[in-house]
């Protein structure tokens, strides 16, 4: 397999694994300096 494709596949596989240390069910992230369109 081409190295780039292999890296991408590995990356996607890792993303698909849920962390055993995950913590929250929901959240609100408040940011400032929001651009108004």
């Amino acid at each position, binding site marked *: 397999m081409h190295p780039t494709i292999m890296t991408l596949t590995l990356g996607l596989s890792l993303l698909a694994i849920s962390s055993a240390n995950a913590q929250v069910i929901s959240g*609100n992230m408040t940011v400032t300096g929001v651009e108004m369109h």
Partner: protein
Amino acid sequence: MARDATARLYDVDENKVAFLRPKKLGKYTHGTIRFQARKGKLIDLDKLHESVWATRLSKGTRSGLVALEVTAVGSLSVSNKQTRLDITGSNAHFILGKGKSKQQRLAFEQMTKALLQGNFRRTQTVRVTGTVEGWGGAWPSVLKKLPRKPRRIIVTGFQATP
């Protein structure tokens, strides 16, 4: 960008990421990104931090992180005179702190009552909402390193049933 960084996370339900109407507070404009985990999943704050870091939000944008409020489900216990929330379905835990506002003090009292009822033994599953300490500041300094652990949250809401 921070909204997109949040929605990119695998455990975040991208259909439930919302950007709440920005509010003008003083000369700055605040906006809130609301996010929720996929059904049966939990969101890892380290991954959230990493994802926002990857946006490379830089100095000079006059933007930053005001606060991160999270909701977590788990059981309460007391260890070394600290109240902790052990997350259901994970190895993680939060140290819970008391805030100064009326709402924060009330939520903390409700939580303490639940612990008292159980004689300070581990409680049934409860739902705690709180502001995560260390998650605030201007870009990019707020993203330079992960906030310290154990993670500590100032309780803003409590429900005895999840």
